[in-house]
């Protein structure tokens, strides 16, 4: 779907952040499977970031 009307987003613009977050989550879920130590820590950061993004926007509302 291309640009439709003024003030609206393209499909890519709408799904860009969700897709990035999904990719980061996928890496996070996989990393902890691959090893301990470094891999676990990387997984906490990667899978933790979607949680932080959610908390950030929820907190901004308040």
């Amino acid at each position, binding site marked *: 779907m291309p640009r439709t009307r003024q003030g609206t987003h393209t499909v890519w613009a709408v799904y860009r952040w969700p897709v990035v977050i999904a990719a980061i*989550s996928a890496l996070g879920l996989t990393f902890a*499977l691959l*090893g301990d130590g470094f891999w676990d820590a990387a997984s906490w950061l990667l*899978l933790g970031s*979607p949680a932080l993004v*959610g908390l950030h*926007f929820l907190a901004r509302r308040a």
Partner: protein
Amino acid sequence: MLCITGLPLIFHHEIDEFLYEETKATAIIPGRPLASLDVIEKNALAVLPGAFIQFLLWDRDEPEALLVSIAKSPDADFRDNRDLRMDVTTGAYLDEPDIRGRLTYVLLRLHTEMFLGLPGKLFLGVMGVLFLIAVVSGVVVYGPAMRKMSFGTIRKGRSKLAKWFDVHNLLGAVTILWVLVVGSTGVLNTCADLLIKAWQYGQLAEMVGEHGGRPRPAKLASVEAAVATARARLPNMTPSFVAYPGSVFSSRSHYAIFMRGNEPVTSRLLKPVLIDASDGSFTDTRDMPWYVQTLLLSQPLHFGDYGGTPLKIVWAVLDVFTIMVLVTGLYLSGKRRSARVRRPERVLGVERVGEA
């Protein structure tokens, strides 16, 4: 319901440790010899004379103790077993944890089958599939709904409905992949019994071969020697559990020693070694079929127990978000139904494209 009972289950190990006291086992000192499994076996049967051991299980979280699972007969239903904790260093009996009386056990039964057995399990499996379909449909309607808003916007001062709608979209977007992974691995787990049955009638039967019809030996060969033989066959693996002759995971005349790897991924995968229980000789060992491997690898991705406590906390936060997505979704669909005549897209402040 699944999200709510699942939340405390993420921390089942911590909860059990906090709520229920267990006799401390002797710390393992490297170099100090461990008790022979034959001694542990003898001490366990002294606690429950006349009974039959079905399994020896090593707990990956507590290597100092061994769980000995005991039944009234060699082939009794293992769900009625009594489990004794034994000290791996001294071989002494520690205690009999009342696993079935625990809060976490009740939650687990609710979470997996609602105390309804197989029908409950199948019902929850179907619900899981419907849940996944609902999640995907949410992704589809997210696009049209968010055309006029930037990511993460939660509108202030508008109607309560608009705010809930925005929270639903935000949290749905950040949890989407995690929800799909945890949901689909959960559905896969509802098929676990079926997959294990398939393995029993397939690979296990093949491995046992012509020994299949033999009765259970009157006197079993040493279990310590059987485990030593399995270790010698697979030196890079560690025993995870032993299934005794007659139990569901072995034949009537074999010990099945299930070995696991030592790396984070391979430690989830099992490889059975069959040892003839009449003379202790090696029979066969094979990698488990792909469908069992898939099930075994999918389990940590459902439980979130494979990356330490911080990963469990992340799991819990994402679970709470999912609960919020479900609650706001229910609220919105209820409101939408009652407001259908009043042009809901006005209420929500979005333009609907097709049926949302």
